[in-house]
């Protein structure tokens, strides 16, 4: 029987930051593969703890209460994001006061040549297929809101410009307490051999444009270990200012046979 085998690799760099607030992990359970990436924020260790809570909540649920199949993955992800949101919001510091930390979360679930995805915040999922790189997710930041308001005529272009200095502020993230936005795909996406799925924190796409990311993916010759390492290294090299934490996960679909 022909089957599609996902191969996966991950890589993180601290960049020019003091703390590593990115965290990613993946796990398998009954023919399903789940990959999760969280980019935490919040002073001191807050971000790190938030990312950790996000990843462990999602993976924990995946082990204890996985979706029945990929068809259920979207609903499962929304529930898992909500649980992760609650667990990040409940984080307490040493003195017992709320940590006020947060984290983005992106997730990809794969089952036999089909994929579902989910996103909260501004980490990003790309799909590279047949030489075309496309962005799967949208960024949940103030710019998104401003765009909407501009389109609806609520604000003028001048107001938009004035406001966009705060454009990168997140409007949805784990820990906000009741997620205003949590995106998932609708129907599972069919996958094809040689598809590459990239999950990354903003450290990657803030230093590299899509064309550069695509070139590095192509030049890794399908070797996912090489791909994630080279992507993070290029991000660090191409950064114009200080490089943020950067985490990259790559899943490549191989055609194999059982």
């Amino acid at each position, binding site marked *: 029987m022909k089957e599609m085998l996902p191969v996966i690799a991950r890589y993180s760099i601290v960049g020019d930051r003091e703390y590593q607030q990115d965290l990613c992990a993946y796990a398998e359970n009954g023919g399903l593969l789940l990959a999760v990436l969280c980019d935490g924020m919040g002073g001191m260790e807050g971000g790190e703890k938030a990312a950790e809570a996000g990843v462990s909540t999602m993976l924990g649920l995946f082990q204890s209460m996985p979706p029945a199949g990929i068809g259920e993955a979207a609903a499962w992800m929304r529930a898992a994001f909500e649980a992760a949101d609650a667990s990040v919001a409940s984080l307490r510091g040493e003195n017992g006061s709320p940590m006020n930390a947060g984290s983005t979360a992106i997730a990809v679930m794969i089952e036999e040549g089909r994929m579902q995805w989910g996103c909260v915040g501004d980490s990003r999922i790309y799909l590279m297929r047949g030489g075309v790189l496309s962005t799967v997710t949208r960024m949940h930041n103030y710019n998104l809101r401003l765009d909407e308001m501009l389109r609806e005529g609520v604000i003028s272009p001048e107001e938009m410009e004035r406001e966009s200095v705060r454009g990168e502020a997140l409007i949805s993230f784990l820990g906000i307490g009741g997620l205003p936005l949590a995106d998932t795909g609708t129907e599972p996406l069919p996958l094809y051999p040689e598809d590459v799925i990239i999950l990354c924190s903003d450290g990657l796409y803030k230093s590299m444009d899509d064309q*550069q990311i695509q070139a590095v993916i*192509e030049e890794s010759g399908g070797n996912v270990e090489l791909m994630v390492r080279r992507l993070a290294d290029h991000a660090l090299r191409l950064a114009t200012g200080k490089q943020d934490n950067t985490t990259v996960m790559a899943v490549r679909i191989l055609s194999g046979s059982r």
Partner: protein
Amino acid sequence: MKKCMGCMNDYEETRGICPTCGYSDAAAEEQMRKAPDLIAPETILAGRFIVGRALSLSGFSAVYLAWDALLLRRVVIRELFPYELCRREPDGLRLTPEPGAPKGLMTECVMKFEREVSLLSGSQDIPMVLNYYRSFKENGTIYAVTEYLEGSTLEDLYGGDRKAPASLCKKILSTVGAALDQLHARGIIHANLSPSSIYMCSNGELALIDFGMTKRWLSSRMRKDPGILDLRYSAPEILMRKVDPTVDMYSAGAVCWHLLTGKNPPDRLKKRIHIRDEGMGRLIDELTAAKPEDRPESFHAAGVYT
């Protein structure tokens, strides 16, 4: 600002000469006068790579320093350019088959080169193997884009009669040897290892910069030695087209022999090689045994690394 085609740093155009490396437009013109067959500096390939100064032109390929305008880095571009098979068109770019050359041989050569770079691409997880980026076919030939390394080949460093310390030979055998063992395990035989395929980076690390298969194939296809294969380091049976992994043991041994003695390795069939006293001498002796079956099975078996 002007990008220097000699080193790819930017400098103030009014200076006329690069303050980093001393390269200038005059140097570029000089290169084109001396070697008009080369692609002129500042030519753009694949809509992305700016060709810089030539690093070498041999009977088989031309190697250029280049600037990757997409990923903003120095790269090396190797252009397949077998002298006897093709010539440069007056546009300074296109290669067309030599009228006298066997029909279809250039096309076949391009295919072999493509195969070689795909092996290089598939071997990127092996330490020591040069970072390979991509290849593209253009202008009637094929180009391979790889990492640019600061440093020199062992040929450039020790080519004449300069001797290298035994410690370098040990390092070559252990690192290049380990890489060759891994290549062999995947069915890849280099068969053309020489001091010009081993690169010494400025940080002291070694790298294997080519696989040399296309070159070997071409030299056997031309039925006469077109002088592109370095026989000094080739196992005797290679001329009989017998190639197994031990030809790489032989070559590595011959390379070390050259580096240690500062002399060309002698023809193994005519003369025994002896470097007295050291264990290195005995090891080289074993590696360069005239008969393949007398050579160690692998570098690991020879005990050069653990």
